[in-house]
């Protein structure tokens, strides 16, 4: 296992995009952790100053129509976005890895069924599926996480399945079978650790798209109304876009920023870890 980390670390030192992505992400994580200390106001508190322009008074980025401080909302909104993004990407990564690896390694009927499911998922527009489910089951944060996670695993599964198919032919897997190792152990000890890198890269990209999905849901009014989120801010600010542009704009910029960070990391990982792009010799 330690060599997985050492590979990640060596990838970090080679790839500049990956490195800067990671540094920026670290900053965001610090913001998330110390949100309480950084944000000057309580984002849920409805203040007296309504729709204050940015820079006026103590409101660095202005306030909303309800008098909430935009800067504090963005700081706190990072918690929502990041946790939804990461948790749902993790759900989809874990499910995708397990199902894809099992399908590719064990083959048989299971594989046929899974391949069909993957194909169906990749064909239907998942966003509408998510929309319907959220509309039906309510839009708490947990629901949103689960729904995004449970609908986005097929791309990971497809990737892992291809990896499993090729790793299965490698001699070290055959030698493990010849030693009497059980199927499940081979799956977890040989197939997954050796084939997970593309999935890791894909999952990182998945965080970005999960954040976007959440924002879109909130924008359509299907976000969790009880927490501050960037999508929600855009939704709320939409009607004041001519009179108070800052409400939506800064939230949009924040989304863009974090999505770019995750794309940088995902792309960097892809480049550094993908065997296809590695020099042949």
């Amino acid at each position, binding site marked *: *296992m*330690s*060599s*997985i980390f050492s590979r990640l670390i060596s990838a970090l030192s080679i790839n500049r995009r990956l490195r800067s992505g990671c540094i920026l992400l670290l900053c965001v994580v610090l913001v998330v952790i110390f949100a309480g200390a950084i944000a000057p106001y309580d984002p849920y508190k409805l203040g007296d100053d309504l729709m204050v322009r940015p820079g006026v008074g103590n409101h660095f980025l202005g306030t909303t129509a309800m008098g909430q401080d935009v800067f504090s909302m963005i700081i706190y909104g990072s918690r929502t976005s990041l946790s939804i993004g990461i948790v749902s990407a993790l759900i989809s990564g874990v499910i995708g890895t397990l199902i894809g690896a099992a399908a590719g390694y064990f083959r048989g009927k299971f594989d046929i069924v899974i391949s069909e499911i993957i194909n169906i998922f990749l064909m239907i527009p998942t966003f509408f599926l998510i929309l319907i489910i959220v509309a039906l089951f309510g839009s708490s944060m947990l629901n949103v996480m689960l729904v995004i996670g449970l609908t986005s695993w097929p791309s990971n599964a497809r990737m892992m399945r291809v990896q499993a198919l090729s790793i299965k032919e*490698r*001699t*070290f897997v*055959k*030698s*493990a*079978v*010849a*030693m*009497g*190792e059980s199927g499940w152990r081979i799956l977890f*000890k*040989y197939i997954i*650790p*050796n084939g997970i890198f593309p999935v890791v890269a894909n999952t990182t990209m998945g965080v970005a798209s999960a954040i976007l999905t959440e924002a879109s849901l909130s924008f359509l009014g299907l976000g969790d109304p009880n927490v501050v989120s960037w999508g929600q801010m855009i939704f709320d600010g939409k009607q004041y876009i001519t009179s108070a542009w800052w409400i939506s704009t800064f939230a949009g910029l924040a989304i863009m920023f974090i999505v770019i960070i995750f794309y940088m990391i995902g792309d960097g990982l892809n480049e550094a870890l993908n065997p296809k792009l590695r020099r042949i010799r």
Partner: protein
Amino acid sequence: MTELTTLLEVKNLKKWYPCRRKNRLFSPGKEWVKAVDGIDLTVNSGEVVGIIGESGCGKSTLARMLIGLEQPTTGEIRYNGRLSTDLIRDDKKGFHRIAQTVFQNPFDTFTPNDRIGSLLMRPLKMHNIGSDSAERRELCLSALEEGGLIPAADFLNRYPHELSGGQLQRISILRSLLLNPAFMVVDEPISMLDVSVRADILAMLLVLCRQKGTGIMFISHDISVIRYVSDRVAVMYLGRIVETGRTDDIILHPRHPYTEALLSNCSTIDPDDQTEVIRIEGEPPSPVGTGPGCFFAERCPKASAHCWRAYPSVTKAGESHEVSCFIYQREQR
């Protein structure tokens, strides 16, 4: 020597892989890569059977089938009279203690994420050899030392990519030996070892074979090694055995034209060696679309018209020396 009992018996074993073709539309009908195409063979306990043959003739495929890594297309494999499929169904783990292998490619035999220590100790743990991990570690250490990998404790801590080809090859052999199998098929186990290390490793294999009665199938391209270790030799060509017999019969008096050519090409470093090299010409052989004649016919210097029509059946060419070639069928008549 102990009394010979039949340990492994292989009957009409075949492995055909479906062939990928460019235009499936225009040439219907399935084509096959006939990697192994009907092999009959026995290995007795306490005996080393050498397998030689051209690169790509199906030796490794045969090995993979024998240890249950691949399903034969047809044919049966019996260990001590019991079908290998039954053995695997009843006790999968137990089967892998009967039949072990050493793979051809040592660089890919070990998972890159583990250290040599855990790679060696894992099979021991799986098969409950040694009571605790300290004892297993001792077993591994002494095995490594025996294989000339010194300091042994240092090797346990290394990753596979930090070792040389020969070192990995030795570790691969040692790992299989630790399980004390009843049958071993070793696929070019010493190709990356120099002559002096080779001797030690071969000695280890032979001790196992002679003292514990393990049957060994020894695949190699190095015929002088085959001569040194094996009791019997089988010569393969495009998925079939063309000649079998006792080692010295085959090496000193080869019958099949392919064996003759093969042996004449092995020279020694001895400058006085005067053997004339038989060149064989022709297209590289392919296991796709073989037959109906003798597979070797197109490259055979002694081929006659007859050879293109049918595959020669097995003919006795001496006590326990069998050959599939028309030349000897005619002689016998």
